[in-house]
């Protein structure tokens, strides 16, 4: 497998996953806000924080209200992480690896891209937004299923598994972070947020499609500690940090020259496994923990890049 192709497959999977996650997030958040009291300080700007605010949003919009935030996340051309841009990048990567992925997979990504482009305007109303994000989610899922069922589980597939799961773990960690930030510091204008704790954590789970699975697994009523533990450490649910990292580990195991990468994945896994949930819920512990996790994810990415993708750049240097 060409290094360049491996890199593009990895990014294609990451961008598709990013689009799907963003769509889920917007959907669930719309629901959550309907449940919260009017005075709650949980606002739309939280979504900007989750997706990694780098000051760009304030450049394109003065207020962070429903309309501006959802537009920014769904279809804004200037937001590199918007669904429109993510899918457009996924499509570029798929277009340049068409000879590797099944023909139907390309058709699917291409038609999703056309859909997103054509429905940009429709996605601005609440109802249109729901249809729009559902379409994105179901097609991203369809792609994952199609690749799993119609593509040889070869190196190329492994790189997509790595890209998808790293992106997924990253998003799960961000969602935990925000859930925690909102709940642990209920600085609200006279509104007792604790009343809404249950509803909030439910929505955190829902944004990861995890509510049903969580209920099967944890019988107790929904509470912060159990949710955080579930999202970090459950082995079976495919969006938990532990599960995503294990999937990455499996994929890395089948690749050549994998020692460095296995080591960095193992380090991240160890950090998750050794965490003490009780302590996490004190003060800023969870916030700091998530920060560390994100550093681990970024280290894994850099190792992948160094071992399998940048080799070509280095050899070029050596040759010249």
């Amino acid at each position, binding site marked *: 497998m*060409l290094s360049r*192709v491996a890199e593009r497959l990895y990014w294609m999977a990451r961008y598709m996953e990013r689009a799907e996650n963003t769509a889920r997030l917007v959907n669930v958040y719309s629901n959550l806000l309907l449940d919260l009291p009017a005075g709650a300080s949980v606002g739309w700007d939280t979504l900007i924080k989750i997706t990694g605010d780098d000051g760009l949003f304030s450049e394109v919009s003065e207020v962070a209200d429903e309309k501006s935030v959802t537009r920014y996340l769904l279809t804004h051309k200037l937001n590199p992480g918007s669904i429109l841009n993510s899918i457009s990048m996924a499509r570029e990567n798929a*277009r*340049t690896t*068409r*000879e590797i992925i099944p023909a139907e997979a*390309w058709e699917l990504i291409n038609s999703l891209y056309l859909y997103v482009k054509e429905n940009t305007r429709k996605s601005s109303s609440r109802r249109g937004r729901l249809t729009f994000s559902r379409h994105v989610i179901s097609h991203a899922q369809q792609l994952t299923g199609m690749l799993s069922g119609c593509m040889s589980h070869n190196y190329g597939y492994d790189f997509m598994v790595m890209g998808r799961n790293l992106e997924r773990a990253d998003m799960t960690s961000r969602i935990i972070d925000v859930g925690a930030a909102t709940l642990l510091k209920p600085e609200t204008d006279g509104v007792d947020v604790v009343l809404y704790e249950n509803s909030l954590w439910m929505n955190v789970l829902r944004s990861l499609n995890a509510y049903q699975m969580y209920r099967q697994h944890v019988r107790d009523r929904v509470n912060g500690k159990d949710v955080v533990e579930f999202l970090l450490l459950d082995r079976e649910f495919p969006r938990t940090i532990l599960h995503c990292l294990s999937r990455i580990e499996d994929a890395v195991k089948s*690749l050549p020259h994998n020692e460095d990468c296995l080591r960095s994945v193992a380090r991240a896994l160890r950090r998750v496994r050794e965490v003490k949930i009780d302590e996490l819920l004190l003060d800023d512990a969870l916030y700091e923990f998530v920060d560390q996790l994100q550093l681990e994810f970024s280290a894994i990415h850099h190792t992948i890049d160094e071992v399998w993708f940048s080799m070509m750049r280095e050899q070029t240097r050596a040759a010249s």
Partner: protein
Amino acid sequence: MGIDWKKYNSGPFYDELMAAPGVARPHARELVSYLQKLKSTSLSSRKHAAEAAITTMGITFTVYSDGENIDRDWPFDLIPRVIAAKEWAHTERGLIQRLQALNLFIDDLYNEQKILKDGIVPKELIAKSKNFRKQCVGMKPVGGVWAHICGSDLVRNDDGSLYVLEDNLRVPSGVSYMLENRAVTKRVFPELLKGQNILPVGDYPTQLFDTLAAISPRPLDYPEVVVLTPGIYNSAYFEHAYLAQRMGAELVEGQDLVVQDDHVFMRTINGLAKVDVIYRRIDDLFLDPEVFNKDSMLGVPGLMRAWQKGNVALANAPGAGVADDKVIYTYVPAIIRYYLGEDPIIDNVPSYICSDEKQMKHVLANLDKLVVKPANESGGYGMLMGPQASQKQRDEFKQLIKADPRNYIAQPLLSLSTAPVMVDNHVEPRHVDLRPFILQSGQGSYVTAGGLTRVALVKGSYIVNSSQGGGSKDTWIVAEED
């Protein structure tokens, strides 16, 4: 009711499907009567289905305009063009004969140059050829074959016969569209294809792989074959990716390849892997910055060295384009006779060579009746369509020809045949040509069953190039009914 063929009239032009208004040619009878019976709503819904299929399948071509690359949907007309199997068998023999002679010619030019010494082709022509590569002199590619993949353009005149308009020996494109056109037709008219004896076209990628594998310097069952593309911004990128995928070959860009110790390797996640055969879709001059264009970012430094040492095969071989020259074209009948001792099976379009003074005078005096073509352009660029041009354009060409006669040939304007094209809810005649693809290695030849039919979608136009408003049709080779 569907199409009313009694209202379809191609006038003075030979029509591919209809012998006269309401009368189908024998090999098109079934198609014509099927379309007649089809409800017009059903016909237009299929037209939409075809367009939707092309969009979803992502069948595109790239045009460069206003400093931007734009992907356009591939223009497709859903009524197939039909050719009788008997005629095709004859044409196929003619195409193989032609490419055999051209390969012998190229090999001779880079080695003994017997044909020049015998005065069949003038020495000056080669001396002034932009596509003669001195770096190739003395080379003996595997099997003596230089042009492994050839796309020849055929046109049918009002006398009903096919003529060769030009041979494309550098990096001919279009074959993926031939394959995709059939795939679309299968989606849109499944019942129609089932009832008839139409030659399949899907074999091409396998044949291409076999041809490429046959020229590998290492005798392996599965040599490492790669397709070298200039990248995503090339107008034929779609095809490069398509063919690589169908052959199960790696699609590489220049940056993926590296030459070490005169061998070519590709950079993989496993380290360097040796490459045996490169189906290159990059022009000669961009192949190797060490030898040709020094600024080329598309090529691979050292590639020519590896090829000259015989460590890697290039298809087509560098320098093969010397025979893909519109002036050399006029000598092809003589070339066939010289090397094969046979008469050409398919004729050339009669042509005037401007480097011959007498012929140039004739051309200059008759610019309003002739089509003038530069020797080395492709895609229909730099041409003068004499009868349709303005006096100013003709005067400009007069100067161009006088300044560089070697660079021009002229041909009478052929009455290109027509085929019915869907316009709104009825059919109208439009001019068509045909580009079949011929494969050749030391071990044998293969011709596509039909080829890519290109159609000038603008009424009365002869320009079939997709970059200039042309469309395409599925092409059927059908056994005639008795």
